[in-house]
């Protein structure tokens, strides 16, 4: 272009430009093509024959029944199975999101072998033949070298029968190390064990309770069985005027549960035990206790003398001397009148129920706290009554082993050549604590672990000591993962054998935590596998077949279906229970059973199998209240305010006694009491409490877009970790809503978006659990994992790694 264009040049330039645009396809004609292109972008969904089939959700321990709509070979909608006693047709958002697990674009599509190193894995897709060959070879070699016991199976799935199959496999193989990561309700279970001696599931009949005092139990956000809790909640609010159940949520933060409760009592974090004991103080001093129950069924309420004549402090003395109202009000920062009122209401509205401890294992909540809360139930006689605290019976014995979460082994009761790698004898509670694995692996004691098989669990991500777990995995020569996604743990494996997702396999599940009735649901696959995946159960069955000998004899099933059928035969043999039915039929069955009639709709194992396939499962809808020899199995045969198991254990574990700040022999060690509250260290002024939100309950589900979108409705947050902070605190810090902000603890730091929330306690900050994966799906690796910031207890008597109260600083 000349510096001074004249008209001709100008027209030349403009014309040339226009021509250029035209040739690049952007003319009027181009525009109309563009429009056509826009129109052709429309998505057309293929039609096909419609069908409905049943399945079971396994995204949380509850195992709700599903009803899945299929169009041709595609599953297009998940709904609730209206016959399933846990959810009765309702579902939580997690259950609905199962389709996005099934059809997730980032699922592992075939077995993967790590051809790089553990530090820098490189994944190579291999055939199933090759994968099976590798697995079988390793397991066979170990067994031939007499190292079978050094194989560890870590399970995070909640299925019951499938877990039985795994147990059978490892029993036959020769390993005692069939471990389960637990459901998160361990503190409550520990209280049940220590105070009632029961090892079965802790159960609450929420539906029939008149007054629910929840100590930080996120009842509506993933605690126990979310959907059945919601059903109970709905039925409370349906009650006619004056009959409405009062639901009091005691919690430092206004969670969604607290917001939906009839009353929210804000207390200082970690002082649930003190508040429970303060309520006990009022009950005792005002004479509101169930004295008959106390006299007949409890131990350690009054001061007592042991066989040697030594006098011991009872619950009553402890409470009266150390948990007077003004003291408790000072510790908990709950107004005195509130405590008084709660106690009177609790005693005045029976059946009243106190439940305690968040399900999420990381929030401060402890065995003593759970004991204090459970003691309230004993004080008002709410044990073994309708609407009270129950002990769920196990599935009929004879054909069934204990519930997976109840994998207790009586000390010394192992029938294996070698003891379990996590020695239960050493722990207070009769179930192994998976979070102790890193310690065991690194110390190579009692013996080095040669192989670890991880199924449905992601301990590297979900344990407070996950980093340690990852380091410890380096010490294991052969690590196999059955993950469906490349998760944080699978990234440390040598071999990944991707498992089917729920809708692709024979599904089954047992009673959810806190559910009072034995139950077993079973459903066939809904759709054909989307990818080259295999059911882990069938993988083990194949291995057993390949290894032959006693292993093949122990597991003579060629498919998961065959195995499940054999188990159903066992259920039938127990001659009890019914197949799933409508609520009306359920009521009728209960009535007739109370009258002594058991009239099942099936008359043979085959018929039961068919009914289960048709209706989704089998259950025993009648609970026998007041079977004291089943519900109270302590040494005293009573409810123990003073736990004799604790007494016995503390004698042999002086280090625990001293860590708690007690002298050996202190009676308070065996009684519920408030633990000392830690002081914030210099420079870390805020207490960090990780919170569990329903969409990411249990810290899982971050890979599912449906759930990410609804993660934090109270702060309009999604897809990203957020830090909840009280606006007053933020004002003092000079930070604003929506800012990206660093949270730093002595252990590490992470960045999250600040969200001001009036429901957050001043001086306390919250991060949601479930964020901050480092591996896996495109959608999951976002945000901060609060577990990487919290300090974990090196050793926990509760049987789960409990995160310690952690203090952080916050800066922009």
């Amino acid at each position, binding site marked *: 272009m000349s510096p001074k264009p004249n008209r001709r040049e100008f027209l030349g330039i403009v014309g040339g430009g226009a021509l250029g645009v035209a040739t690049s396809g952007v003319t009027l004609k181009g525009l109309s093509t563009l429009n056509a292109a826009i129109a052709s972008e429309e*998505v057309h969904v293929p039609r096909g024959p419609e069908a409905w089939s049943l399945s079971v959700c396994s995204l949380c321990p509850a195992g709700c029944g599903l009803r899945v709509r299929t169009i041709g070979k595609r599953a*297009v909608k998940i709904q609730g199975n209206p016959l399933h006693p846990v959810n009765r047709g309702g579902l939580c958002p997690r259950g609905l999101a199962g389709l996005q697990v099934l059809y997730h674009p980032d699922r592992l599509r075939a077995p993967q072998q790590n051809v790089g190193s553990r530090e820098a894995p490189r994944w190579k897709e291999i055939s199933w033949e090759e994968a099976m060959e590798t697995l079988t070879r390793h397991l066979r070699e170990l067994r031939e070298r007499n190292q079978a016991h050094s194989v560890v199976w870590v399970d995070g799935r909640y299925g019951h029968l499938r877990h039985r199959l795994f147990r059978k496999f490892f029993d036959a193989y020769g390993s005692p190390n069939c471990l389960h990561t637990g459901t998160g309700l361990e503190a409550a279970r520990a209280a049940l064990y220590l105070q009632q001696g029961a090892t079965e599931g802790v159960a609450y009949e929420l539906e029939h309770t008149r*007054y629910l005092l929840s100590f930080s139990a996120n009842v509506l956000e993933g605690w126990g069985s979310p959907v059945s809790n*919601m059903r109970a909640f709905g039925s409370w*609010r349906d009650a006619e005027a004056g009959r*409405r159940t009062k639901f009091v949520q005691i919690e430092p933060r206004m969670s*969604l549960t607290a917001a939906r409760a009839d009353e929210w009592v804000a207390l200082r974090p970690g002082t649930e035990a003190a508040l429970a004991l303060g309520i006990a103080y009022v009950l005792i001093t005002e004479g509101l206790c169930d004295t008959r129950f106390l006299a007949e069924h409890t131990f350690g309420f009054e001061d007592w003398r042991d066989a040697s004549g030594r006098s011991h402090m009872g619950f009553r003395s402890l409470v009266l001397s150390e948990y007077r109202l003004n003291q408790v009000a000072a510790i908990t920062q709950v107004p005195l009148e509130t405590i008084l009122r709660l106690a009177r209401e609790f005693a*005045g509205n029976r059946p009243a129920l106190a439940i305690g401890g968040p399900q999420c294992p990381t929030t401060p909540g402890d065995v003593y706290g759970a004991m204090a809360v459970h003691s309230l139930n004993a004080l008002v006689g709410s044990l073994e009554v309708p609407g009270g605290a129950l002990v769920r019976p196990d599935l009929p014995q004879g054909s069934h082993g204990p519930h997976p979460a109840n994998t207790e082994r009586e000390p010394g009761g192992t029938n294996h050549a070698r003891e379990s790698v996590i020695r239960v004898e050493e722990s207070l509670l009769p179930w192994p604590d998976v979070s102790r694995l890193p310690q065991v692996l690194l110390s190579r004691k009692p013996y080095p672990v040669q192989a670890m098989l991880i199924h449905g669990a992601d301990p590297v991500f979900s344990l407070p000591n996950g980093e340690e777990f990852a380091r410890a995995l380096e010490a294991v020569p052969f690590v196999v993962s059955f993950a469906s996604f490349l998760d944080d743990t699978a990234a440390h494996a040598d071999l990944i054998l991707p498992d089917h997702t729920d809708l692709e396999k024979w599904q089954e599940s047992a009673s959810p935590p806190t559910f009072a009735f034995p139950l077993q649901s079973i459903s066939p696959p809904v759709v054909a596998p989307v990818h080259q995946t295999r059911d882990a159960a069938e993988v083990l069955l194949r291995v057993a077949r390949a290894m032959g000998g006693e292993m093949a004899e122990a597991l003579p099933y060629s498919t998961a279906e065959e195995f499940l059928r054999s188990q159903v035969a066992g259920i039938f043999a127990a001659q009890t229970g019914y197949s799933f039915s409508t609520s009306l039929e359920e009521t009728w069955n209960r009535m007739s059973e109370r009258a002594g009639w058991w009239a099942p709709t099936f008359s043979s194992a085959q018929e039961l199998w068919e009914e289960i396939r048709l209706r989704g499962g089998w259950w025993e809808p009648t609970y026998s209240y007041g079977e004291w020899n089943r519900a109270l199995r302590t040494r005293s045969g009573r409810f123990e305010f003073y736990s004799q198991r604790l007494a016995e254990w503390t004698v042999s574990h002086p280090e625990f006694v001293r860590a708690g700040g007690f002298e050996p022999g202190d009676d308070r060690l065996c009684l519920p009491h408030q633990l000392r509250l830690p002081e914030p260290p210099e420079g870390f002024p805020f207490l960090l409490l990780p919170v569990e939100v329903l969409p990411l309950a249990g810290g899982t589900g971050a890979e599912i877009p449906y759930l990410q979108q609804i993660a934090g409705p109270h702060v309009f947050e999604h897809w990203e970790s957020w830090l909840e902070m*009280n606006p007053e605190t933020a004002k003092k810090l000079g930070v604003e809503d929506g800012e990206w902000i660093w949270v730093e603890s002595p252990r590490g730091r992470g960045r999250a978006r600040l969200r001001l929330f009036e429901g957050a306690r001043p001086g306390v900050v919250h991060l949601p659990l479930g964020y901050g994966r480092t591996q896996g799906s495109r959608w999951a690796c976002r945000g901060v994992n609060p577990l990487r910031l919290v300090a974990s207890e090196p050793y926990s008597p509760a049987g789960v790694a409990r995160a310690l109260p952690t203090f952080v600083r916050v800066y922009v």
Partner: protein
Amino acid sequence: MARWGMVIDLAKCTACQACVVACQAENNVPCVEPEEAERGRILSWLAVVAEVQGSYPRVSMTTRPLPCMHCDSPPCIRVCPVQATGITPEGIVRQTFARCIGCRYCTNACPYTRRMFNWYRPEFRGELQLALNPDVTVRPKGVVEKCTLCHHRLMQAKESVRAEGRPLAEGDYVPACVEICPAGAMYFGDLEDPESRVAQLVRSPRAFRYLEELGTEPKVIFLSQGEWAGGKQEPR
């Protein structure tokens, strides 16, 4: 002629958002990418909206599932320049995706912010496309979409009762959100039929309509929380 309406009992709602996901799955509503979500482009025909009041520890929070209110006097319909939205004889506020020009006037006129716009072509990544419901059109980019009260279910219900030779009964036609609610907090039915559950609930003293003062006459009716009134306190 039926007049379809919904009752949402806020006393029973647990804010679990199962309805939100059920709606999204039933109606092929795409999940937008995180970056888009951050820019405020989440598509949700039904959202649970929280409102926090007060300051710690005297805080309260209401949570409210908000579908389209299916107003009898809908502000959105009046403003649409091309009649792409209208109200059916049975009271459902419909949207004709194929006619909408995407001017987004209706989205702005709706006082409940319950109309969504397709900022992009809907994206169902990889196999996620397999989960699409064939009964519901996937909306193209550039048009407004909204809750239809699962209109396709009404069509199916009508078809099946016609085959059975009987009139539509209560429960034959239920939208996905109502069907899934675990706490049973949502009810659906014919407001004209005095015997229907919804018609009975609407007469409750707890019944109110959201932003009633705007005169939009919603057919989604809420029942207020209510209070714990019962229980005696043990005398001293």
